[in-house]
């Protein structure tokens, strides 16, 4: 790597570092498992490096990064026609989700109940299509307004409102049926 390349690489890493952990968590929420989250983050970093000049000078680069992340995820999902969420072939829920969530200070019953709730949420989210899930993650879980979501997902506000309404009905029905939350 030349000196110039090294400098750009260092600047890129420094620019990205404050957001990296949050980016990963969002990727995990979108994909539902660690393997796909890592793949998505890797693809995102490559794309962000290619577009570094476009976003590095912005006062709030996280907005740009978020937009690229969500749309990259949707594009990749459409290409791969992947099934979201827990893939029993590659991840075992007990190993990858329950162990990482269980607190050592909790009693076994409470930990098991909480783990069950976590899986219920995963399964409910898995029932959504990629665009619905992106909206739920962006708006309901991460707390962005619908206007912000519209700017990130490049989708009209009215479309998002209809989509959100359908998502809420679907999720409530599934979580009620499951009985862990309602």
């Amino acid at each position, binding site marked *: 790597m030349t000196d110039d390349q090294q400098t750009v*690489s260092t600047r890129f890493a420094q620019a990205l570092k404050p957001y990296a952990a949050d980016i990963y968590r969002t990727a995990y929420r979108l994909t539902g498992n660690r393997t796909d989250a890592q793949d998505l983050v890797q693809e995102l*970093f490559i794309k962000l490096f290619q577009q570094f000049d476009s976003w590095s000078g912005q006062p709030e680069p996280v907005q740009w990064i978020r937009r690229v992340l969500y749309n990259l995820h949707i594009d990749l999902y459409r290409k791969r026609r992947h099934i979201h969420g827990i893939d029993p072939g590659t991840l075992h829920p007990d190993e990858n989700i329950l162990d990482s969530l269980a607190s050592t200070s909790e009693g076994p019953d409470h930990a098991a109940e909480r783990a069950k709730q976590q899986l219920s949420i995963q399964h409910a989210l898995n029932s959504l299509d990629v665009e619905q899930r992106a909206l739920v993650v962006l708006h*309901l879980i991460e707390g962005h307004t619908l206007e912000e979501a519209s700017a990130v997902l490049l989708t009209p506000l009215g479309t998002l409102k209809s989509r959100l309404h359908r998502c809420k009905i679907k999720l*409530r029905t599934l979580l009620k049926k499951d009985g862990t939350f309602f």
Partner: protein
Amino acid sequence: MQCTEARSKLNTATSEQPYGVELREHLASCQLCQCYVEDEQLTRALQSWQVPGPDQAFLQQAMLRATRPIRNSATRKWSWLAATAASLALVGVLLSWMYSSELKNGPLPHLQMADAPSTQSVQRRVSIVIYSGDEQDAELSIALAENLELEGFAGQQTLTWNAHLTKGENLLSLPLLVHGEGGELQVTSRFAGRKHQVQLKVEAPRIKPLDSGIAKPNRPENRV
């Protein structure tokens, strides 16, 4: 009770100070506030979902890979390569790759090539059999160590393309150039909602017969 007051009380209700009688009566008669409660419950349930943080080593690696210099711009559609991969050209050494415990848990299989000075480049063809239960599309990707090169793709250490799998065995034959001591080759395929991966060490010296522990394609337990 007005809705604004009801919602204010809803937001401040706790297990120690649950809903009062007046609030419950309002909720029983107000569809809008009932929806509000359900929305709040749903949002809280979703926000209670905890996701793990990233492995710091992964983040560092990912940033490193993203900034690795690439001479040619990477593109994703290699339909002609997919067509080549789908053809049944049986050349060179055949490696069986199946979704089996032997391959998953055993040591990395590796090939050894004829003795050669470490500075020379040696041609090797690595062939992998992908078994598909149905005719379907797949995404294939390969990741090459620094000392490996796919012929015709100099400078590209990772390649991803779409391929169409036929039902049964599909051969992926990779013409490699092994520079110096060689290195690791990783082949990943994604189809039918699953990801399959195999890693191989491709080294510079002598070609030897396959390790006996490598699964053969026609063993039922090795089929995907």
